[in-house]
């Protein structure tokens, strides 16, 4: 097995995939620009993040992904330490999700998502026990540690995102479907129990779930304040039209009352600015984007690369689906950015880093095995 030179890598990289990523990021900058309320120029900040993101992406391309996978436990331990740091540092007045580095507030949970994908890809690649029921213990343990730490922050959305990623990775790696089914069912029951266990979830998180279940009703003031977000979001979507009103004052006026419009709720802004047509186009770009990542996974034969690509695909897919579902009132509101579009440095960097890894995997030499792994 021969190391590829950087030039070869660049040449064989999936430039269409990177192009789609950059396109999404650019659309995001437009959306954030529209959503910005004038006090802070979020648009240009986002633009800077996008540029840094592309740079990071290219840097990721430069490093062989196998090295990245090999050092997975280093990343993993680093990520866990960061999460712990958040819990220690972020306690008190400003609820802790961030570590402040100067003016930049790093969100370790974002980075941890990617680290987990890398760790799992490496672990499952080098350990085939996941096909047995007991063999599932280790991957679940690897996932549950960051899961609990992120829950504790508390950041329910990011924490819950880790589980489908784990399931998808185990599934494609050939874990027994019945085993996964049993674990999933047990997880559901556990979640139900935990929801009603006092002290575990705080009232605020429960209220959001309740608010979701009671959409449209005005039962209590508290529910109303949670519902407000969903209702505003649906209102912005509902008042959009087919072709959109562009980045204009009309759009700004219409989204004036939507909280978090530049970050988690960027999609309603996009659909208002670019219409249902634009939104449909956005959907197609995402579908194509995920499709291309999966194609990369099919193309490479090296197992950890495959798993890496699948993991990243599931990460993006889940984030996209959950974010869109939540902005359209299909899911309860959890903090979940839309990849490449939502305002936020950590999210943008992580997304581009993940994309860089996929490009990295895709540009690697196809290595022939006797049979396709995981078959």
């Amino acid at each position, binding site marked *: 097995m021969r190391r590829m030179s950087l030039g070869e890598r660049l040449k064989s990289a999936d430039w269409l995939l990177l192009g789609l990523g950059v396109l999404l990021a650019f659309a995001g900058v437009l959306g954030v620009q529209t959503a910005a309320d004038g006090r802070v120029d979020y648009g240009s900040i986002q633009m800077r993040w996008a540029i840094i993101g592309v740079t990071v992406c290219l840097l990721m391309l430069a490093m062989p992904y196998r090295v990245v996978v090999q050092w997975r436990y280093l990343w993993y331990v680093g990520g866990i330490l960061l999460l712990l740091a958040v819990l220690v540092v972020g306690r008190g007045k400003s609820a802790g999700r961030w570590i402040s580095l100067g003016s930049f507030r790093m969100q370790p949970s974002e980075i941890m998502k990617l680290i987990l994908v890398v760790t799992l890809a490496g672990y499952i690649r080098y350990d085939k026990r996941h096909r047995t029921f007991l063999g599932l213990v280790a991957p679940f343990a690897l996932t549950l540690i960051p899961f609990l730490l992120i829950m504790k922050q508390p950041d329910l959305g990011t924490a819950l995102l880790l589980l489908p990623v784990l399931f998808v990775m185990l599934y494609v790696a050939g874990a027994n479907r019945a085993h996964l089914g049993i674990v999933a069912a047990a997880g559901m029951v556990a979640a139900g129990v935990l929801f009603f266990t006092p002290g575990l979830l705080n009232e*605020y998180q429960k209220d959001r779930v309740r608010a979701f279940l009671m959409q449209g009703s005005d039962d209590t003031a508290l529910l109303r304040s949670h519902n407000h977000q969903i209702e505003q979001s649906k209102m912005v979507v*509902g*008042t959009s039209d087919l072709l959109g009103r562009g980045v204009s004052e009309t759009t700004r006026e219409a989204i*004036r009352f939507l*909280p*978090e419009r530049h*970050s988690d709720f960027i999609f309603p802004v996009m659909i208002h600015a670019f219409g249902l047509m634009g*939104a449909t186009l956005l959907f197609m770009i995402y579908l194509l984007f995920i499709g291309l990542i999966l194609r990369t996974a099919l193309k490479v034969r090296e197992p950890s690369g495959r798993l890496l690509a699948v993991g990243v695909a599931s990460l993006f897919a889940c984030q996209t689906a959950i974010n*869109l579902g939540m902005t359209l009132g299909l899911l309860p509101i959890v903090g979940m950015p839309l990849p490449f579009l939502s305002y936020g440095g950590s999210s943008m960097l992580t997304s581009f880093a993940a994309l860089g890894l996929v490009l990295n995997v895709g540009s690697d030499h196809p290595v022939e095995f006797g049979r396709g792994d995981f078959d």
Partner: protein
Amino acid sequence: MRFRRRLILLYVVFCCVMGVVWLRATQLQWIDGDVWAQAARKLRQRPERLDAMRGPIVSADGVVLAEDAPVFQLTVVAWDFQRRARARCSGCGAIYFQSGRRKLHFPRTCACRRQLIRRSGEDAYPRKVPKEESAQLERLPPADLRPLEKVLDIAPGSLAIRAKERVAEVERIIRELRDRMDREGDDTSFREKRLELRAQDLLRRPFVIIGNLPDAAAQLVLTNEDGTFRGFGVRSALRRNYPLGDFAPQLLGFTSQLGPEEYGPLREQHGDRVTFNTRIGRTGVERACNWQMHGEPGHRLMELDESGQFSITVEDRPPRPGKPVALSIHAKISRIAEQLLFSDPRRGPAGYVPQGQPSGAFVALDAYTGEVLIWSEAPRYDLNTELDDLYDKRLTEAKRDLDAGLWIPRHPLDKRMTIEEWRARLVQPAPVSMSRIAQLAVEPGSTFKPLIALGLLQSGLPLPFHSYHCHNSTRSPGCHACGSVDLVRAIEKSCNRYFAYSVRDSKYWPTYRTYLGGFIEEVGIGRAPTDEISEWSRGQWLWPYVDFTMKDMLGHAQAWLQEHGGDDAPTLELAALPGTPPSVGGDPARLGSRLAKVAAWVAKRTRARKLLVSATRVETIERDVVMEFGVRAAGARPWSALPGTDRTALPSALSGLPRHRVGIRGQLERGGMVWFRATMPRRVGRTDRSKPPVIRPDDGRNVAIGQGPVLVTPLQMARAIAVLANGGLLVDPHVVRAVGGRAVQRVPRRLRIDPGHIDTVRDGMYRVVNEEGTARKANWGQVPATVYGKTGTAQVGRTWQPFGETEDGGPWHHWFVGFAEAPGRRTIAFACVLHARAEAASGMTAAPATADILARWYQDPASRGGK
């Protein structure tokens, strides 16, 4: 290729999910779009509540006693107040204000800058002035508020202090909000945003700091253009105005804004009629006729136009004013009566001024209908004082930190009296807020004799002695050596001994005991006059017992203990028992010292170092404690609550109101505890009327001469006397003649009383005025009517000094009651009482005053008509 299959399956699942999401977006836009468009429009709209005028209160002679009038209010906006720095444009002179910490806000009025922008072709309108440009602006010195303070006649600097208080209040609320969010573990990234929105809203909301701004001050603020009064604003509101000021304040009552805890329940009951701006009647007629006078608030929906101004009217429903209330009282003659009674220096011994004010009452009613015609009492207070602020404060104090403290109580800016002064007055045993006519019950003295006489006759028993020889002796009660008297002469001469012995020493005493008790109640003594009067009286009871907290009382008690016991004094602690009310009524200092005495006693007996104090709601009243705490008003110790009876009958004026019992509990070293109980009748309980009242043997003599346990209000007295005037009708005294043009009808009840007996008593009362009686010396010649009357001078019991008098004999009540009839004139029954320092013959004080008032009454056309 299982791997491939799995990937394809996953991809298909993802595509399906995205498909569903896309369909949802389409559904929201295409199918529900109209609904959302409507909702979005609502966001551009601003509803406005238009307050309805409250109905006026008008007297029978057409004087407006209460009306809603537009006033200006001075408001402060915290946000603007904190950014008062100004600068002037050197070009056009427009005023720039501070906007951020450093930056200046760019005003639309600055012409030069607008031009600059137009030329540069920028489409956005920058809100903040760039640093380099602000250097060219001429900084102005801090704005001077003194001109406004001068107009308002308040101390220099006090406006800024008041505004800062308000700003601090807003900041405190925002801090509390932040703490609450921390407590609730609000983890969302929206947290800061939501907090910011709430804070912004609070910071920019105007809060009233002066409720009634003089026109000159309003003009000063409104016409100012150089930003002197930045942060201050003027808005117009409706305010209850009482043109006569201090006319019958206890009767008319006052209104105040809803408290936070009242809004919900009232809103449920009355729906849209209640808004946050709603003012409701707290006492008096304002309370009794509140919902009739309360109008329907209007509603206006404004929409943003293209330029961002709320200028488009979408909906407009004007408010509907409330109904006027017409009183039967004649304001002019009542005013004259006030003058004659309380401002005339000739009143001599009556010129006693408890609490620094003359005290007394005169009430006259139509003897056949019960309409109250003349209502004069003292002391009075000015209803145009900021009473409502005081009231609001009382309401909000207990609930300060609830509901995130979003309710900001308004402070009064009353130059005449501070809240402390008001409270001191209000917690006195006979507070200024208590009506001397309808609520303050005192010993009727000899004026009770006609009623006793009628009762004796009515009992059907032969009179114990046809003729009784009264000679002055040392035996109690003392008398004036009236000589040989029969019943009629006994009334004329006001012979104490005739009545005392005819009742107590006769062989019929056991029958009298029961019969008289019932009879006196028959003629309306010891029970509430009417529904209407008891309804307005009810609110009044909030006043004497202005809430104070248990902590206040404990503080006073602890201070007393420290002072008297030094280091050995036990420590008092508020027991955290369930049901302990945060506040109870009464005077904290008085109750505190009593509590301290008991605590000292308990501590001594039990050697307890720490005593727990608590209060619970009670259902029965302990009379002696009531007396101790100086609560004796209409019925707290009325006729039918005589000692020895097994029940306490209280007029409904006091009914349905909760009371509290303060308990003290000493924790004993060897276990166990001691309870001391005292009732604090913040408000008094409902009457049990299942048994007839019986006079206790010891009280027989006193009752017969209207002393001892007998307490009546002037209104009750006038009503009972009206029975003699109209030949046996018990009228319902009432003050509301008509509401919204519809007359209020009240049908008198006929009592089964022998007309012959009435004539006998009338004869006696005739002689009091017209023959050798006690009132003969008054100038009755000026009254063109036949006057029947009875004088009375009653001594105040030692146990209770309603006016704070001490051992020198306390105040005396000079009574004159009676009725007057003349052909073609209304027959009126009246009662007059003057609370005086000395024992003087009331024939020399109350009777001449009444004669003067009646003379003026018969000059008034209102006296014509009737039976």
